[in-house]
């Protein structure tokens, strides 16, 4: 949310149209936010290029019109670019301890998931006939049991 507000003010910041208070706030933010700094760098490049190309100042409101267009373009960024951006942000935004903590957490989650899958897959397998044989054996002890049929009932197909 803060970044969004700052980005809206960036073109005015470049044009020196902001109050001192706002400028200080933006500069403070730019020091810790790599995304907005990156955005400012882009705007600066565009600014320089347009100045070189046209040799004159852009019309008033040029940046206001440009900014939504840039945002629209950002939405169309492909997966490859997004991954690149993510890697860039990851490199810059987290401290080494934070990175380690995130890595350990992800590894722990993956390990636990694998362990759970392995356990459920590696449960001991028992043939149902083992239980049926026991059942037949208990029945065979009864005096009313079929003394001929029961001992062989599971074997006759």
């Amino acid at each position: 949310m803060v970044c969004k507000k700052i980005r809206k003010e960036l073109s005015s910041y470049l044009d020196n149209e902001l109050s001192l208070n706002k400028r200080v706030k933006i500069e403070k933010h730019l020091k810790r936010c790599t995304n907005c700094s990156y955005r400012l760098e882009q705007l600066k490049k565009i600014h320089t290029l347009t100045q070189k190309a046209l040799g004159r100042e852009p019309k008033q409101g040029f940046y206001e019109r440009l900014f939504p267009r840039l945002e629209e373009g950002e939405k169309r960024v492909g997966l490859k670019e997004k991954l690149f951006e993510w890697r860039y942000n990851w490199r810059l935004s987290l401290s080494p301890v934070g990175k380690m903590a995130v890595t350990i957490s992800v590894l722990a989650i993956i390990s636990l998931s694998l362990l759970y899958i392995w356990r459920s897959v590696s449960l001991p397998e028992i043939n149902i006939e083992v239980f049926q044989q026991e059942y037949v054996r208990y029945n065979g002890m009864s005096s009313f049991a079929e003394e001929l049929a029961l001992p062989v009932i599971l074997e006759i197909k």
Partner: protein
Amino acid sequence: MRKSNIFLPAGRILRFIFIGLFFLLNLMVVPSLAVEPEEILCLSLEAQFQVDAEGIKETQVYRQEENYIIRAKIIYRKPDFSYILYLAPPMIKGRRILDNGKLRIEYIPGMNNPKHSSSLNSSLARKRREKSLNLILANYTISQLPDEDIAGREVYVISLVPQYPGSPGLKRWIDKETFLPLKQERYNSEGKLTFSSQFTEIHFGKKISEEELNDIPESVKDKGFLPRHQVVSDIEELKEISRFPLSFPKYLPSGYSFQEGVLLNGGKRVALIYTNGLETIVLFQGPPINLKIQGGREMPFGTKFRTDKGKTFVLIANISEEELTKIMESIE
């Protein structure tokens, strides 16, 4: 001499009176000595341990897909010896079951994998018989049907009709002289015939030679056999010695009660056995397992299983599918 001649007619009359009275008394007493069906049934449970007999027995197994007949030669010798030699069908021909009063050994000559279990005349088996009989007296209407002839012998016909619907039924033809069951028919909960066993020939009093009975290969003889599983009749004791908290079904079909618990594989798994005297419901429980099921064969009993609460339950009984589901769902 003369004197005796005078009293002779009177003596004869007295003799006739005594003989007449004797027959009259017999006519009055004999009916009161008639054996009750419950008593006949009870005597039939122990009869095989009190006869010397040899015969051929056939069991017909009735299935939806196909019926088949199992034929075997059976030898009983007092006090507790029995020997079964399977003659048919071909796939089990030659198999033997020998019970010497201590052990029951199932084996095939030439094969080294005999199965040992407790004798049918062990104290445990006798206790089970006693409990079964008490439950049968409580759960079944026992009646005597008109006498018949089986394998040339006069028999009592005893019928066991369940008092609770959904229970199996039984009919037994019992030899009048020895009380040995010569025929038996078993019906499922729907009253359909499932098994029919009958001696097609039987010879009593025949002494079986020691030689004939000693064809047991050395490899299958008792070599310090220890029962594989621990049997516990007391439910509280079972709860105490079980390695894990046991789950019990809240619902059981009418007439069934707890018979015993069996600790399998050193207590890793427990089997709870319930009976109504004739039929048995067995609930196995233990750590979760993957149950391997081979389909395609019709069994004379139903099987249900589920893995829940860190345990796998396997329920087996010859009762309706509906009852099996109700029991399984009631396990807590």
